[in-house]
Structures are given as structure tokens and as C-alpha cells.
């Protein structure tokens, strides 16, 4: 068990057309026993980062330490990490027992009896003891996934590296395994880095999440920090489903002027903007109040373009110009019991305490939503 430190880690791939910077100067400290989720769109460098930690890719520059020990130039087999792959990467010609024992046979001096004992214990903990004598081809996807996890756990490594391990499961099983994986990690207390492109997994599983884009680390924080206090427009848009709505606006006479609507700012907002002329206003779908509005200055008449019922709530796509063929829309969520239908004219309020403001040029956050309206007891930052 150990903490993992990445300092200014960079990975450059040499290509025929020149160099590609896959990971750009990433620094991350992962605490002992922490569950860190590395999240970002595909091609953002998250898998490359994980593979550098595993030793499957060389590090162009920067250092990686596991428990105070520099592991940059160590061979993968000497790094004391275990990885779970998206494809599970089980050895098809070996039984489950063989798969789980392989790493112990290759990397330790343990006797056959000890290995067998440990494999059996781990299999019991994972609930796969009745699968031990089967081959991977005879197992379902979920069972293979469990075996792949078991194979990593049985090694008792200093760190788990997981590369989208749930991506090949169907939605229901994925949700179930999410919980199980979290509980398992908590019980074992092994430092874990979990790579995913799925922001739901990031939000629900991680102690902290690190968001990568184009090889650059955007923000590291608890899921709720990243959700409510995004460092920039990319994080704000990436975390949360449906995504935050963005409106690009100009600052004129202390108020924001946009294509479809103007927005009155508070003193606090003006101070945060500090003269930046082009600003992006962000508002999360659940913060938009549809009808029952109580603040006239921030309420606008809009038309419902599309309704996506989800049962517990509805995603309502709203537009300012309903006559357009393909109108620009923004999304609000309303309760599932509300009757809303496409074509309705409604009032939509964008509450001033819930807005985020970003610098339109750099994307940096200038102002994040006020937490005063949220129930503080729920959030422990």
C-alpha cells in the first residue's frame, strides 16, 4: 500500500509526421488507499498516463514515484502494480485458477500450496470459487470481469491500475459492479487509479477525480468540487449529464448581452468578471426554473422544442427561436410528474446564484455558482 506521485509527467510519441504530445506535464498526488478516477474524452491521454504508471509506455520526461520509490525506469514486472484491462485480457488456454495463479508463479517464490491457498481465498472473496476450474471462454462477460479483478487482487499489489474495466458490461451489470468495486477497494485499501471516459463512473466512484483533456490536466478534486466549482469551461461541460448549458455573451454596461437574451449581473458577478469583455455564461439544466418563476429580471419566455421523459425527471430542450428549422436549444430538467409538451410557451428562469461565468477566450472559470442556496450539510469539501 503506497501513495503514488506523478511529477511533470510528459509523454511524446514520435510519429512519421512529427511529434504528438499525448500527456503534457501532468502532476498528480494520489494518497495511500485513495480511489482516483482519471476521466476525459477519448484520446485525452488518460490511458497513456495509466500505461506509463504500469510501465507499458516509457516516460518522456518527469518522474513517477510509488511509495517514495522512483519507478520510471523499472520494468513493469518489478513495479508492484496490477492492472485490469478493458478487454479483461485473460489467458484463454488457462483455467480461472491458472489465470489467477500466473502472476504469483511468475513474480513470487511462493510454494504451489501457498499460491493455491491464496487463489482460493481471493476467489471466495470475489464469489467466483465455483468458476475456478473453468476456462475464460466458458464464462459470461460479468464473470470474466470478476476473474480479471480477482487476478489483480490476488497479487496484493501496492496499486491497482484499471483501464475502463466496466466498459464492456451491459448497463445494469455495470451499475452493480460499480458499487461492488468501490466496496472492494474500500475493504482492501489499495491505492487505485481508475481510467474511464464515463463521467457517471467518475462522479460515483472516485474519492477524487482528475480530468484530462488533450493531455493536459484540467482539474483534480472531489466529484462535487468538480461538479459545482469547475476550474474551467471544459470541466463544467464534461462533468454532469445532461451537460451544463453555455451562452457566449458580451459585457456591456455591467450586464451581459447575448444573441437571444440579456442578463443582469450582481455586484459579485461584476467583480469576478473584472472587465473581461467576452464571457460564457453557464447554467446547469437542473438549476433552470421552468414556470413558477419568482425573479422577473432573470426570466425569459421560451418555447419547448423537445421533451425527453426519463421517468423521474424530464429533460426539456428549450429554444428562443421556435420558428427556426434547427433551433439552438438549451436543456432544463423538470420533475417527472410535470406535464410539459413540445411547442408549449413557458417562462424559464436562470437564477443568478446558480450561474457560472467563464472567460470566453481562455475558458477559465471567473465565477462559480454560489453554494449558499445548497444545503451545506450535504457537501463536505
Amino acid at each position, binding site marked *: 500500500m503506497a501513495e503514488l506521485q506523478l511529477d511533470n509527467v510528459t509523454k511524446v510519441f514520435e510519429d512519421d509526421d512529427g511529434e504528438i504530445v499525448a500527456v503534457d506535464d501532468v502532476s498528480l498526488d494520489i494518497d495511500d488507499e485513495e480511489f482516483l478516477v482519471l476521466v476525459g474524452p477519448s484520446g485525452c491521454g488518460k490511458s497513456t498516463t495509466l500505461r506509463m504508471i504500469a510501465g507499458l509506455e516509457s516516460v518522456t520526461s518527469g518522474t513517477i514515484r510509488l511509495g517514495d520509490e522512483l519507478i520510471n525506469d523499472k520494468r513493469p*514486472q518489478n513495479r508492484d502494480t496490477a492492472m485490469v*484491462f478493458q478487454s479483461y485480457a485473460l489467458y484463454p*488456454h488457462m483455467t480461472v485458477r491458472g489465470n489467477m495463479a500466473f502472476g504469483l508463479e511468475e513474480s513470487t517464490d511462493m510454494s504451489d500450496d501457498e499460491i493455491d491457498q491464496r487463489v482460493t481465498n481471493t476467489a471466495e472473496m470475489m464469489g467466483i470459487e465455483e468458476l475456478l476450474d473453468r476456462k475464460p471462454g466458458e464464462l459470461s462477460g460479468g464473470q470474466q470481469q470478476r476473474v480479471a479483478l480477482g487476478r489483480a487482487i490476488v497479487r496484493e499489489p501496492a496499486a491497482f491500475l484499471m483501464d475502463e474495466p466496466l466498459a464492456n458490461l451491459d448497463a445494469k451489470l455495470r451499475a452493480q459492479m460499480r458499487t461492488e468495486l468501490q466496496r472492494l477497494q474500500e475493504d482492501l485499501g489499495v491505492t487505485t487509479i481508475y481510467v474511464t471516459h464515463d463521467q457517471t463512473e467518475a462522479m460515483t466512484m472516485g474519492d477524487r477525480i482528475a480530468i484530462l483533456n488533450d493531455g493536459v490536466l484540467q482539474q483534480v478534486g472531489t466529484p462535487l468540487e468538480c461538479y459545482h466549482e469547475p476550474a474551467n469551461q471544459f470541466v463544467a461541460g464534461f462533468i454532469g449529464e445532461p451537460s451544463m448549458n453555455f451562452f457566449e455573451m458580451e459585457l456591456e454596461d455591467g450586464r451581459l448581452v447575448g444573441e437571444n437574451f440579456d442578463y443582469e449581473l450582481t455586484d459579485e458577478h461584476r467583480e469576478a468578471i473584472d472587465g473581461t469583455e467576452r464571457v460564457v455564461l453557464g447554467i446547469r439544466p437542473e438549476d433552470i426554473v421552468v414556470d413558477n418563476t419568482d425573479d422577473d429580471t432573470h426570466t425569459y419566455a421560451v418555447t419547448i422544442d423537445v421533451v425527453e421523459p426519463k421517468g423521474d425527471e424530464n429533460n426539456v430542450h428549450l429554444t428562443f427561436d421556435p420558428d427556426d428549422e434547427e433551433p439552438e436549444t438549451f436543456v432544463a430538467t423538470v420533475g417527472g410528474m410535470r406535464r410539459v409538451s413540445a411547442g408549449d410557451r413557458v417562462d424559464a428562469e436562470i437564477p443568478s446564484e446558480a450561474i457560472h461565468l467563464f472567460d470566453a477566450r481562455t475558458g477559465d472559470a471567473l465565477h462559480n455558482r454560489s453554494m449558499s442556496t445548497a444545503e451545506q450539510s450535504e457537501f463536505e469539501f
Partner: protein
Amino acid sequence: MAESTTRRGPGLNRIALYVALLLMVVVYLSPLESGIVTAFKTQQGFFETSPFAPALGEFTVDPWFEAFDRLRSGLVNSLLFTIPATVLSALFGSLAAYGLTNTDWKGQTFVLMLFIAGIFIPYQSVLVPLSQFWATIVNPAEIFAFSDPLANRSGLIALLVTHSAYGIPICTLLFRSHYKSIDTSMLEAARLDGAGIAKIYWRIILPLSIPMFVVTLIYQFTNIWNDLLFALVLVGNPANDVVTMELSALQGSMVGQYNLQMAGAFITALPTLLVYIIFGEQFAEGVAGGGA
């Protein structure tokens, strides 16, 4: 469509199909049939009956015994170098394919190109350099001078090494196509599990290549067993004559003893036939899927 056809004329298409199949059977099997019946005829019977007619009055099994007797030492010699050459070319091909496919190093493409080029070198173009090589540069008779059994078989040793080397490129290509389909992350998992490059080959790649080994073994065995050209050039001592050489010697100089030649041809072909029969199923599996 199929239904209406069956209703109109019961199986006119079927009849045509069977006639066509029957014709093909006749075309393919008639030489074999002719060969077999000839092998059971006396010389007299061969001259008096049609080549396809069975030997009724002039039936004999003597040609078989005589052919086997004259081919026996050739059969032994052929087995002596064909089996090791087959195994070696498959093994080296598999190792080379592993190194060229599942590992990553500079200059890989160039080496692979050399291997591919090796497939297309015709036997005839290397005959002279090959005989020079085995006569002057590396002479097995001199190298193994300390051991008579080996020194006396220098021609077979030369054949063994030559065929092993000649077979490596095509075996490499066959294995490579299989290894390219192996999941990279599985090999990465093995590396993380602590297995080195040799252990990964031994414990993962090799067990997963068994279907491909069957393919290459059958292919190489047939090729090497049937070769006459290299044997003619490299075997000097008549005691080392391989089976293909002895088969061609059955032809005789004055009168063609066709019954003897036919029996000899069947005896010579028997080992390759056996290999196909024994490994046929795995062969089809290896060619079709190559998977585990």
C-alpha cells in the same frame, strides 16, 4: 424458388449436380485407381489389359514387396531428416514470428522484409551456391569426423539444415498472421504479472499456437518429404539416398516396370497421407480460425 423447382421436376437440378460430382470423382480418382490396379498386376497383365481394368487373372502383390524392399533405406533416410527439419522450421518460424509481431524494436520491418523475400527464392537459383557451401565452407563429414554415424550421414545433415532454413520464412509468415490476432493487452497483462519475454512465449504464445503448429507441420512435412531437387544435389553417398531418389531409380533403364513404380509411388506417398489423416481436423481448424 427452391420450392417451385422441386414441385415441377423432382430433382432435375439434383440429378445434374450428382452427375457433375460423379464426373469430378472419376476425373480425380481415375489416375489413382489406375495406379492401384497396375500395382497389383504382373508385368504380363499390365501389357495385356487396359490401364483401368482390374487385375483378374494376373493378380500379384509382389510389386509391393519388391518396391518396399528397394525403398526401405530411402524411407528411413527421408524420415531421419524430414521430421527434424519439419519441427525445426516450424519452431524457428514461430519464434521469429513472435519476435517480429508481439515485440517492439527498431528495424523490425526491415527484418520482416528479408523473411518475406526468403519465401520467393526459387530452389533452382540456389543449387550451385548451396552445393558449394556444403562441400567447401561447411562440410558435415569433417565437422562430425569424430563420430562415424553422423559423418556417414553428412548428406542428410545438409538436407536437414537446408530444409529447416528454407522453411523458416513461410512458417514465420503463417505464424505471424496468427500472432497478429492475439490480444495485445493479454501479453501486457502477462508482463505485469511478472513474465519475461521468454516466459510469455513458453506459457502463453506457444500453447495458443498449437493449431498453427499443426498447419505448418503438415505443410512442411509434405514439402520436405516430396523434395527431390535438393536431395539430388546434396546427397553424394548412395547409402544416404532419400526416398524420392530411390523412387525415381525404380524406373529402371530398359523396360519400364510400371507395376513396381506404381506400388513404389504409393508407398512413398503413404507418410504424407498418414499425416493428413491424423491431423486433418486440426489442420482445417488452424487454417480456418487459427484461434485458441
